[in-house]
């Protein structure tokens, strides 16, 4: 709910702005609002330093950058780095992997979080509900290193999963999960689900609590069952939240992850496991070719921006909640 009010207030501010500009800004007014102005200037400075200044580094992508010569004296090479990127089959493969895992993560985590929030909400016993909720979001606070460690152990040939499968006679000998390129994406998606579902559900739960209870009572009087209530009241009630979160997550599709793939990957699955971020690390950092890393990074940012603009446009056209 908090985000809804935030976006609402933003909207009203925007619509008022043209009017405000016509008003004369007097010194008196500035003085009266000096605390607010100073406060916001701090944030503008912060944003400028940490979000806009670093963009200057993008110049590297068009240079043959060497740390010794620095940004100012490295020779310019035009689009050579980009040309190399797009002629490199490995990079094209990483784009596919990044998109694939990103979309898979987005879809599964999105659906599961909503489902989980609704199910939790239907739970009548508050004690159990609280316990389940707490337990389910705890993994969010574990670092990926630990999560991947657990996963690696659980899926290893002497791990719990294989143990169970062997005892149930589903397989005769241990199944090596990490030697199967085709299921790597799903292992990553599963890891994401396990870690983040509980956490992601919190926001939906908050949105659900804000729905007017009178609606449910009215529906009950009209003879609506549980399914009807979920379908006709809960879901439409949290639809704006869903749309906003979906838009924000769509922009994150290319951030399909780094740690999971980096740690769980190995030679055999590398064609399916490497993401753009790993590629940047490999060529940019370890081959000391910062230019190439930057070029790949720019590509990622640009694609992300395009995706988010398109998604926003679609939302706008269909009259839904939107980001900007």
């Amino acid at each position: 709910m908090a985000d809804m009010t935030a976006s609402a207030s933003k909207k009203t501010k925007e619509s008022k702005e043209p009017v405000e500009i016509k008003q004369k800004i007097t010194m008196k007014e500035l003085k009266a609002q000096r605390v607010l102005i100073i406060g916001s200037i701090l944030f503008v400075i912060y944003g400028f330093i940490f979000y806009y200044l670093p963009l200057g580094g993008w110049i590297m992508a068009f240079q043959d950058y060497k740390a010794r010569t620095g940004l100012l004296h490295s020779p310019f090479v035009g689009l050579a780095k980009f040309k190399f990127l797009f002629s490199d089959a490995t990079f094209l493969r990483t784009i596919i992997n990044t998109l694939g895992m990103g979309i898979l993560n987005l879809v599964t985590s999105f659906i599961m979080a909503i489902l989980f929030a609704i199910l939790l909400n239907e739970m009548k016993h508050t004690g159990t509900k609280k316990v389940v909720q707490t337990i389910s979001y705890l993994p969010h606070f574990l670092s990926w290193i630990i999560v991947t460690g657990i996963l690696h152990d659980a899926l290893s040939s002497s791990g719990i999963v294989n143990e169970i499968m062997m005892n149930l006679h589903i397989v005769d000998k241990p199944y090596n999960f990490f030697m199967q390129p085709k299921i790597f994406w799903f292992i990553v998606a599963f890891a994401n689900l396990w870690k983040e579902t509980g956490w992601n559900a919190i926001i939906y739960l908050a949105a659900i609590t804000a729905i007017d209870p009178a609606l449910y009572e009215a529906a009950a009087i009209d003879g609506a069952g549980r399914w009807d209530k979920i379908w006709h009241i809960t879901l439409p009630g949290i639809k704006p939240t869903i749309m906003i979160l979906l838009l924000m997550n769509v922009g994150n599709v290319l951030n399909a992850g780094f740690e999971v793939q980096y740690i769980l990957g190995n030679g055999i699955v590398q064609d399916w496991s490497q993401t753009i971020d790993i590629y940047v690390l490999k060529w940019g950092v370890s081959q000391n070719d910062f230019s190439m890393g930057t070029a790949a990074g720019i590509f990622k940012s640009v694609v992300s921006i395009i995706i988010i603009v398109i998604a926003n446009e679609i939302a706008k056209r269909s009259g839904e909640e939107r980001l900007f």
Partner: protein
Amino acid sequence: MKSRRLLSMLCATVMVTSAVTACAPTADSGATTGSTAVDTGDTTVDDTGDTGADTGDTGADTSATEGKEYSDDEIVNWTFFGGMPGSEKNDGNEVMEIIAKKTGVRVKETWLTGQTVEEAVGTIVASGDYPTFIDGGDGMMQLYDAGALIPWDDYIEKYPNIKELYSPAEWDRFRMDDGHIYWANQFGNTYGESKQTTHNDEAFWIQVKVLEWANYPKVETLDDYFKLLEDYAAAHPDDGVIPYTCLCEDWRYFCLENAPEFLDGYPNDGSVIVDTSSGTPTIVDYNTTPTAKMYFSKLNEEYKKGIVDSEFATQTYDEYIAKLSTGNVLGMCDQWWDFAYTVNDVFKQQGLDTQGCNYVPLGLVAKPGMEQMWHTYGDTQNVASGLGVTTACEDPDRAFAFINQLLDQDIHNLRFWGVEGVDYNVDENGLFFRTEDMRMKCADTEYKASHLCDYSYFPQWGGTSRDGKNAMTPTEQTSEFFDSLAEPLVKCFEAYGVTTYPEFIGSSKTKTTGVWFPMYSYSNNMTSSTEGGIAWTKMGECKHKWLPQIVMADNFDSAWEDYMKAYNACNPQAFLDEMQTELDRRVAAAEAAGE
């Protein structure tokens, strides 16, 4: 939304503060350097008087060339990053404190964890937050390119112990294209007579108990080796043995990858074979030789038989070491330093050494009767990496003085032998020896972390001590080596009529390494700035992906063909051409130097 913003602000604050604190100069350095010179005059007199008594100045009195003892506020705290895994020392490590008192320098060492060395060094370069000393391993070029290292040139002349490490010609090989020397390799220097007892190189290793069981047979080829493993495994079906495992995680996949060069009888040039049969040294790619195909097809065959560990392709280094430490793995191909430090200590602690679990090296060849060069005698000078002093060091002169002091005999003894009377004793002839109790303690990880401090990646000597009697390190002390050998090893050595590991592997003494050796010192430092460097990286990726697959392939021949197709698509010729150019350059340089 609010919570997210709060969280991000929190994150930002944490990042800013950590960045600020990380940039702050190391505590209590700087200030001291200026004052030491002034202080020396009066501190020497009263300081040595009382500290000598309370630290129990441990017998090193004989070499009291430096009377000065540094007090706590004079000691600078410096840092070292090692681009290889290592074990950190506890704060207040006893030997570290003794060395700090003698040299005025305390170095906190950190090591590589969970990434490749290029990534770690790349991150350090990108952040600009350098340690005082660094060994960047394969990432040394990155440090040089970033201008992060201080030239050694002036200090080599100034400090005799450093100068002594290499001959002028050898020092010249460290020179970079700008004519300066930026690092010195710490290893492979023998003082006086060589006392080498270990085979600190690659080999096919096998547990002593297997040889004992088979009544010490002659094992010469891959076929012999795997036959032996098969037989032993068949005779011990219930012991949970893993006949053969193979590490192929990340950069350590050399365990799987580079055996063909040795099997063909060549020494460890690392990335290529140098063939001299035609008279002029020529680069040959060992990845595509008939021997390579034979080797992988053998592994494939053994994998199908269940002799090769079914998890080999996905195991991590830690899992691999854990597996070896159980004593269940009969054999593997690896570098000694990659497993021995950890695994041998565990065997000793667990008493597995008395059950014949220790590994001995086998110098296998492709065809019976061939000579091999798994072991190379004499010193190998690896110019690709070494210890560098970074620009983050506020007093380079003192840093080099420290390196110089670490090579003083008394401090060198402290580093490798420990404290006299505690970690070793001296007999009436002046020979150092350890009791069984001392050996046990020195194999204990906890004790090593809190008590011993060898500054293992600072320059050091092998061979004979300056006293002319002892070895520079305990592992090379002949008497110590024999006394510490477990019973099954002694029996095995006797059965084969040898006394040391190098003799055991029995590499050719007539064949010598060329002036270009080792070629890996060039390929290790290639970057994507050249065609060959790009090809080298892609070849690595390709091999990483394909080699485990061809070992596990159902149809080896078709898998091998696919692999060769993928391999040739990486343009290996560009890499080989650059290696040939470097080889020619080295040969020409050696001729010019009159070697």
